[in-house]
């Protein structure tokens, strides 16, 4: 129960960060990705602010043996750079450049009551599903 409430608070903070920084606006993201146009470096500072916190704080957090509400840290196992990573990141980057939404902003923008985020959410989940059908089929 506690960890579910924590997840809700974490989600609220994450969404607030995307709204305050306007990263939930595709136009703001397009203006960052459009280097040759009227460039808006704001996204760089959003990443910088976020990574500044995580780089410092994650190091301190991982000094603990266990998280506060659960038995263990679930961290990604793989650290290798392979073709799947490169191709996946490329396809994601193309999609991101086409629509100006990455997954976080799609979800937060659902709360704006607009049509585009809703269509984007459905198509994005379809992308998850198709990937699963092709690559994650368990025997």
């Amino acid at each position, binding site marked *: 129960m506690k960890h579910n409430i924590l997840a809700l608070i974490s*989600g609220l903070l994450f969404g607030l960060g995307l709204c305050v920084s306007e990263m939930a606006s595709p136009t703001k993201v397009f203006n960052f990705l459009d280097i040759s146009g009227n460039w808006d470096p704001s996204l760089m500072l959003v990443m910088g602010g976020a990574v500044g916190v995580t780089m410092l704080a994650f190091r301190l957090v991982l000094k603990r043996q266990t998280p506060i509400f659960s038995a263990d840290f679930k961290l990604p196992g793989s650290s290798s750079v392979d073709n799947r990573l490169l191709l996946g990141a490329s396809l994601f*980057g193309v999609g991101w450049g086409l*629509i100006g*939404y990455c*997954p976080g902003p799609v979800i937060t923008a659902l709360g704006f009551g*607009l049509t585009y985020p809703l269509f984007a959410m459905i198509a994005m989940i379809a992308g998850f599903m198709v990937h699963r059908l092709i690559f994650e089929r368990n025997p």
Partner: protein
Amino acid sequence: MENFTPVSALIGGVLIGLSATLLLLFNGRIAGVSGILSGIFVQPAGDRLWRLMFVVGMIMSGALYQFFGPGGFENSTEVSLLVLVIGAFLVGFGTRMGGGCTSGHGVCGIGFISLRSIVATCVFMAAGFVTVYVMRHVFGG
């Protein structure tokens, strides 16, 4: 650069970093949005509710900000519905294939100084730059 908003960008970024730190410190989980969302559909029952709560929190923030705060978010006028659907599909497919998005690789992975995440972030940013260049300046938006 008249659209540059350094203060709100930095504040927003710090909030996102704090969100990821809370999730790791208390729940031991990475705040990777594409992984959290896709896991709602595929993870075992006991591993679903916290994911849903995180997503609900994100949507609530959007609604509160839009309707009770400064708001002002609109549909993008430069994207057609067809491009939106194709692009969002690629975002979904690509983030699963690459094992993360802007939050999982960008915010959290770089926070761990993971080579894999640093490479992924450079690749999706480069692909985003090229795509927007082509859409805005080759096809003329």
